[in-house]
Structures are given as C-alpha cells and as structure tokens.
C-alpha cells in the first residue's frame, strides 16, 4: 500500500477548451499509464482516454469526472478530470470536495475567462490549494505574463511565476526553471527526453529579474527564506519548502507554463504537483457526528482509526454499478463491513478496484486518503460510509436548486421501461437532476440546471439505455410569492350524516422580508387560550405546507411566505387532524388571492466574451431579452459583457450568439436570483396556464 505522505489527490480544473483533457492525456502518457497519445478530436477516432463516454468524444467536451491513478517518481497521484461547462457545476463541486489540490489550467491567449472565475470561486469555497498551468503557449498571441497578471487582478490570487518561456507562439522551445535557474528542453517525438542546459544568453536578465520577483513574493510565506535572502545564502530546498508552505496555506499560487499539445512543460508540472500540493494528511477534513447533534469532528488520516468514506461519484458501467470513494479516515479492505449513514444499511465490501480512465485494476485494500471504487453498492452520490462503530456524515455538499424543466415522452413501451431505468440512475448520480410525474398531465418531467444539462441526459438515455423519448419545450421553474399582508378567517364544515368535520382557523399571511437568506416558509403559532387545541397546531402547519406546494397563479411553489395563526375554533367531536389541514389549506388559498400574489422568475448572470467588433451585437442581443447590462470590460481586442437576463429569454441563445458573432463569442450563465416578472409577462403566463388547464380537462 502506498505511503500516505507520498500520495496526491488532484483535480484539473479550467475553462472549456483551455486544453484540460489534452493535459490529462499527457499526464497519463508520461506516467506510463497509456502507451500512445490520442487527441480529444483526434484523427485516429480513438479519442482521449479520459473522456470515457461516447458522447463526450463526439462533442469534444468532458462530462463526468473520471478518477484515474498514476505514479510519478514514486508518488501515487489520483487525477480527477472535471467538466468545464457551467451546466455541470455539480460535477465540478463534487470533485473539488475530494481533492487535496488542483491544477488550474488557463489558455495563454484567452487568459482568465469567466468560467475560470466561477471555477476559482468554487475552489475558494472548498479551500483547495492550487497551482496554475498556462497552457497553449505555442498559440499565436500567447502571453503567459499577461495571464499571470490577470490571475492577480481578476481572481485576486497571489500568483508567482516559477518559470519563464523560451520562445513563444510557434517558436516555443522550452521553459526556464527560476528555482534551479536552468533551461529545460523537451526532446524526442513526444517530448519524453528532458535536456537541461544553461539559460540562453538573451533570457538571462529577464530570468534574474523574475527570480527576484518570485523570491520577494515567496519569502513573505517563510521566515527561513527571508533570513536566508538577507544573508544571501538561499538554497533550492528552502525555496521548495517556502513555496510548498505558501501554496498549502492558500497564500500563493505558483504559475507554470508550456503546451500540452506540443508536449512541452508537462514533466516539470508533475514535479510541481509532488513538490507543492499537499498530501492527504496536510488537509483538514471534518465530518458531522450524527449521534452528537451534528457536532463537527476533525477526521484523522490514521489507518488504525475506524473508517470514514465518502461515495462521491456513481457510474453505471458494463460490470454494474461502480461507486467512486475517497477514504478520509482509516483504511478499507475487501470483506470489511461498512454502514451507509443515510440509509443505515450495512454492507460488506466486495470487489475493490483502482480506476484508470477506461480500465481497472483489482486491489485488496485501499489506504487512508486514497481514491478507489467499489462494486455493487446500493447508494446515492454523496453518501457517507462508516465503520459500524461510527455515525458520521461528511458535510453535505452545496446543491443548487434546478431552474429548468422539460417534459419527456417515451416513444414506445420498451423505451418507457428503459427510460425509467435511466432516470433512476441519473437521479442517483446527480443531485441537481430531478424527475417526477406531473399528476395532471401524467407526463414525466425532468429538471436541471440548464438547457444543455437536460439535453445531455436525453442524449444519454438514447445512447446508453436505448430509450427514445420525444421532448416538449423546456420550461422555466417559476416561483410564486405574495407582496402584501392579508388576513384569513376560514371555517371548514361538513356535517352531513355520520361523523362530521369542523375546524376554523384565523390569522394572516405576510411576505418574509428580503434578507441574505430568504426562507421559503415559516409557520408562527400565536394562539392564546386554546382556541385551537395544541394537538391540532401541527395539522395547521401541515395544511399550509400542502398549500405552498402549488400557488394559484401558475401552479408553481410559493416561496417567502409566513403563515401566522392567532385564532380559531373547534368542535369536541367533529374536529380532527384532517379537518384542520383542510381548513388551513382553504385559509391559505383565500388569503393568497388577496395578498397581491406575484410571479418570480429565475434571472441568470450571463457573461459573454468575444471580440470587441461584435460588442454592439452582444449588447443588442441582451437588450432584446429583457436583460440588464451590468458591465462591459474591454481589454485589447476582446470584451466581456456581464449582464442579468431572465432564464425564460435564454432558450436558444447559443445559436443566436453564434450567428451574431460568426461563432467568435461564447457565454456562460448561472443562477443569480429570483425576480418579479413584469406585469405584462405575468399576464401572458397566467393566460397560457389557464389555457393549458382547460385543454387538460377536455
């Protein structure tokens, strides 16, 4: 079993198309896990090894994170390839949870793009130490110095150059290592042979200057280095130690560079992973003790402690269900007994494997800090598995609510069966993907984070599960709310033979004030003198909770409402739990109409990047979509426009943007907030809803 201090769990995270998958591929090649290099959109038709799904190969994007194990100079490294598109953020977030460090890949031409900002924000949330790799230095317009400055300006990172390039664009030859002060060239057809030489004459001054800059920045993280600098006896070892310390403390981001495609700069990057990113013992992980009021417990990277394991990724492969796990405490052996703390189910560890992107290796045990995979475990993504003596749950991951839904209809009976199987699998794999059957239309509805997110699942159903489905137009997940306080006094009475029903509830509804954290619902009991007996108070609460599931305007959930009851009446014989629930439901509907209800819609933060010459088209396209331009930044030939646009206006935007800008602009979006829809739009929605209901009744 590998020594824990040598182990590294890293992720590769970046903007789409910055060459992340190509980089992963090179890392696999140099660490001898694969014997030939395949390009993402390669001519050989094999595709990069990390993109295991057929669909990813076709679209040239990476969807699911595949974990793979490599060894570099005696250090086992688990590499987790993460998707770049924002619709798959949950995948990114989930993999960040299990990483101890990351490589932030940036394109040397495009620099820090909006996606890099999103990814960086996620990394900050999970406190992931990172090193940066400026890729594509062979491209026209490459400027790693500018990218480093952007890391400082746009991301607020203390970025420090550890290398400078030897030549740029098509003359890129290698890099200068500013710690050892030597030039590195990459010889051989695949850059396998490293040649170390003196720094070229024309770069000596620049290298000396950048080394000074680097030492100044790094010495702030280390007293030892600071002193050594004053006494002028700095050693390489001291620099390594200081950079490592600074990086792990998140005070420093060392910057490396090269071109994955041209096989330049990868081996020094792997050295940096080993030198500067933490091993599992250097990162603090906590769990919640469910037996002790969810008190946070610090986990120890100790093999002899009882095991605490996170299942962070499910995959349905040809051999059955595979669960990717990370061991936070203790170790895991074949035959060990574990408990799933969510379902409280016990199970025995059967087959334990270590994963390569599309092949696997059976292992007998996995040590603390390691990433491995289990076979045939019944669980959902994000479940915690513990030694039977513990009842811990690893902190729940932040899961955003879905903003879009789509009705899907299987084309035949066989597809219907397969679709059910597929949906069952997808919902387990991806917490941002929901599904339910609409009781009114009897249609299956899927919900997710964006158009592309749902599209990919529909495609996967077709390919992996042979479930052919037709889809309706995607629909926005609206919310309903009230804008005024309104009182209610509602009596529910049914006394027609047999045991009757009687309940009266009085009180008011009011909007919950806007604050940082808007609650969806609050119930306040202000009953005095027992006008409603205490045993029926929870019934009222329940009745209101049923009511908020469906607003009266569009049938969407009601949010931000406080229900207060302050009076009521009961009947000694005819009152019941059911009667009070019904009364509360009726009271809510009565007051809701009078509380000036409004419709809320998801508003997305949309960031468009493209050449300045298309700025006008970009502005125009946002303006036509009820969008608000927040800012526009021009930097040389490119501009970035930040705006807020209602999601309902964003359908098909990628096609529109492509044609407006000759395909030279791209955009990302994420949920910014829920806002009131303008009255005219609200009226249209209501009319459409009434029409739809009428049709269903026929």
């Amino acid at each position: 079993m590998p020594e824990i201090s040598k182990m590294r769990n890293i992720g590769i995270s970046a903007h789409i198309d910055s060459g992340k998958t190509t980089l992963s591929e090179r890392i696999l090649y140099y660490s001898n896990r694969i014997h030939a290099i395949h390009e993402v959109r390669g001519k050989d038709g094999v595709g990069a090894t990390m993109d295991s799904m057929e669909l990813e190969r076709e679209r040239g994007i990476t969807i699911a994170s595949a974990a793979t194990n490599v060894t570099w100079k005696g250090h086992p490294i688990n590499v987790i390839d993460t998707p770049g598109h924002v619709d798959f953020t949950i995948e990114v977030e989930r993999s960040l949870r299990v990483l101890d460090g990351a490589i932030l890949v940036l394109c040397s031409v495009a620099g820090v793009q909006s996606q890099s900002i999103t990814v960086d924000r996620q990394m900050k949330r999970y406190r992931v130490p990172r090193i940066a790799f400026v890729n594509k230095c062979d491209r026209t317009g490459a400027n790693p110095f500018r990218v480093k400055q952007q890391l400082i300006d746009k991301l607020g990172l203390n970025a420090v150059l550890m290398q400078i390039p030897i030549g740029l664009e098509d003359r890129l030859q290698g890099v200068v290592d500013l710690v050892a002060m030597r030039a590195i060239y990459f010889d051989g057809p695949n850059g396998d042979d490293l040649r170390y030489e003196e720094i070229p004459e024309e770069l000596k001054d620049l290298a000396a200057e950048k080394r000074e800059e680097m030492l100044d920045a790094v010495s702030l993280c280390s007293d030892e280095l600071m002193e050594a600098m004053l006494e002028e006896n700095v050693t390489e070892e001291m620099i390594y130690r200081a950079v490592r310390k600074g990086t792990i403390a998140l005070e420093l981001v060392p910057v490396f560079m090269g071109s994955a495609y041209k096989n330049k700069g990868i081996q020094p990057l792997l050295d940096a992973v080993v030198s500067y990113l933490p091993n599992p013992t250097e990162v603090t992980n906590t769990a919640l003790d469910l037996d002790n009021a969810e008190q946070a417990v610090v986990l120890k990277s100790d093999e002899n402690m009882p095991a605490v394991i996170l299942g962070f990724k499910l995959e349905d492969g040809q051999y059955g269900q595979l669960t990717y796990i990370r061991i936070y405490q203790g170790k895991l052996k074949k035959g060990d007994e574990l408990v799933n703390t969510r379902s409280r189910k016990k199970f025995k560890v059967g087959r334990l494997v270590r994963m390569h992107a599309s092949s696997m290796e059976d292992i007998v045990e996995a040590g603390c800090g390691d990433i491995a995979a289990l076979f045939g475990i019944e669980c959902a993504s994000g479940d915690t598995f513990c030694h039977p003596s513990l009842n811990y749950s690893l902190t729940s991951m932040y899961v955003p609510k879905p903003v879009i839904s789509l009705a899907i209809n299987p084309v035949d009976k066989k597809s219907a069966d397969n679709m059910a199987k597929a949906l069952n699998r997808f919902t387990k794999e991806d917490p941002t993907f929901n599904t339910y059957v609409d009781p009114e239309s009897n249609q299956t509805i899927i919900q997710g984070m964006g158009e592309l997110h749902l599209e990919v699942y529909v495609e996967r159903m077709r390919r992996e599960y042979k479930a052919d489905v037709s889809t309706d137009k995607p629909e926005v997940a609206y919310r309903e709310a009230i804008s005024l306080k309104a009182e209610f006094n509602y009596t529910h009475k049914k006394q027609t033979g047999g045991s009757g029903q009687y309940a009266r509830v009085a009180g008011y509804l009011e909007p919950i004030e806007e604050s940082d954290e808007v609650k969806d619902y609050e119930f306040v009991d202000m009953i005095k003198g027992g006008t409603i007996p205490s045993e029926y108070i929870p019934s009222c609460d329940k009745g209101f909770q049923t009511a908020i599931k469906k607003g009266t305007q569009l049938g969407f959930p009601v949010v931000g409402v406080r229900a207060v009851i302050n009076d009521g009446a009961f009947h000694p014989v005819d009152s019941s739990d059911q009667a009070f629930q019904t009364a509360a439901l009726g009271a809510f509907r009565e007051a809701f109409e009078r509380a000036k209800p409004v419709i809320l819609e998801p508003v997305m933060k949309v960031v468009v990047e493209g050449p300045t010459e298309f700025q006008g088209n970009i502005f125009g396209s946002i303006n036509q979509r009820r969008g608000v331009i927040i800012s526009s930044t021009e930097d040389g030939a490119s501009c970035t426009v930040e705006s807020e646009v209602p999601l309902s206006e964003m359908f098909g935007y990628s096609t529109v943007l492509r044609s407006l800008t000759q395909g030279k602009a791209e955009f990302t979006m994420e949920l910014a907030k829920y806002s009131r829809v303008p009255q005219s739009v609200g009226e249209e929605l209501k009319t459409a809803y009434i029409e739809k209901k009428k049709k269903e009744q026929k």
Partner: protein
Amino acid sequence: MEIQELNALSPLRAFDESLNGGLGKGNLGVLVSRHGIGKTACLVHLATDKLFRNEHIIHVSFSGNVEHVINWYKEVFRQISENRSLEDAAAIYNEILANRVVMNFSQENISVDKVLSSLETLIRQGSFNADAVMFDGYKLTVASEDDVRKIKQFAMDLRLEVWFSVSPVRPDVIFDENGVPNTIMKYANLIDVLIGLKYNEAMDKVIMTLVKDKESIDPKPMRVTLDPKTMLISE
C-alpha cells in the same frame, strides 16, 4: 422615508444650486483633487443621486476591476439608504441597477476614439438611453486638447452630461490653495464646470470650491463639503 422626499432633502440639491441648476446636458464637468481625497466617492454620489431620480448612467473606469466600482455604488447606496431609512431599499436598489452600466477599459493608453465608439455602441445598439457619463480616473491632464474637444462634441451630439474625476499623480504637478493642479488650466476653455477638492484639517472636511462655472472663472466655496468619514457629499 420615501424616495421623492429623500431626493428633495438630498445635499445634492444644494450642490446643483451652487451650479445654478446643475451642469446640464452637453457640458463637461470636472472634479479635481490630489490623489486619495475621495473624488471617486464624490463621483459615485453624484451618479447615485441621478439614479435616484430615474436617470441613466454610464460609469467609465480604467481600473481593470469592475467589482471594485460596483462595490463603491453598493456602499454609497447603503449609506444613503440607512441615513435616511429609505423604504423598500432592496427593491429600489434592484430597480436603479438596471439604469447603470459600468464600462471598463483595462487596456493601457486606450484612445479616446475607441472609448467614445464603445459608448456610442452601448447607447445605440444596446438601446441604453444614457443621461450622463461619469469618467472615473481619466488622465485628462495628459490628454490632448483634441481629445477633450472630441468628448465635448460627443456630449453635445448625444445630449449627455459628462463628469470627470481627475487626480494627477506626476510629481511635478503643483496644486493651488483650492486643490486644483496647474496642469488642468490649459483646458479651462473647454471645461464648463471645474470643482476643486481639498482637505481642511481644522474643519476635518473636504472643502469643495467652484473654480469655474460656465463663463465665469471666479473661485468661490460651495455650500456642500465632502465628509471624509462617509465619503459622501453633505451640507
């Protein structure tokens, strides 16, 4: 307090009065001071007051960090709304946000032509009906006379009120007793309103002096000052 009342009581009314009713469209106004006196805050307060009165603003910055500018607006809004206990503040903030665009140029030495063409693009193609443009930290003192003339023409053509905040940092610049640098005076004939900001230690206030108002060059103190703590204009 409601928004109409807040506007009526705003110290900016006294500011406008000092200028005989404000700068006016088609005119250039300049706030000038040494570095670090609070000219950005002052500019943002001017802009916020316009937003409160339903005007549309373009804020032009050259800093490279949009977040920074947006935070200034947030802070100025927060201070004003808390001071006056503004009703429904969150909703009003969201509403006025739609009337403000921050345009940022992070490229060094960008040409005036480029800046003006981007502004025109936003106004015409983005259908953004701007009433005023605030140039934050524009290096007016090293701009050519021709550049300033182009901006003036632009302001007249598009009916815009244009404000600059200027604080030269070159060591050879000499500031007079009103906080006005000598380097700005060569444009005096192109500028319609020039206001100097200078910190007065005895009063612990930033004194605002109206150095030039339209045709008259006769420096006189304004009724308003800048509070160095809140960085807001006050009476």
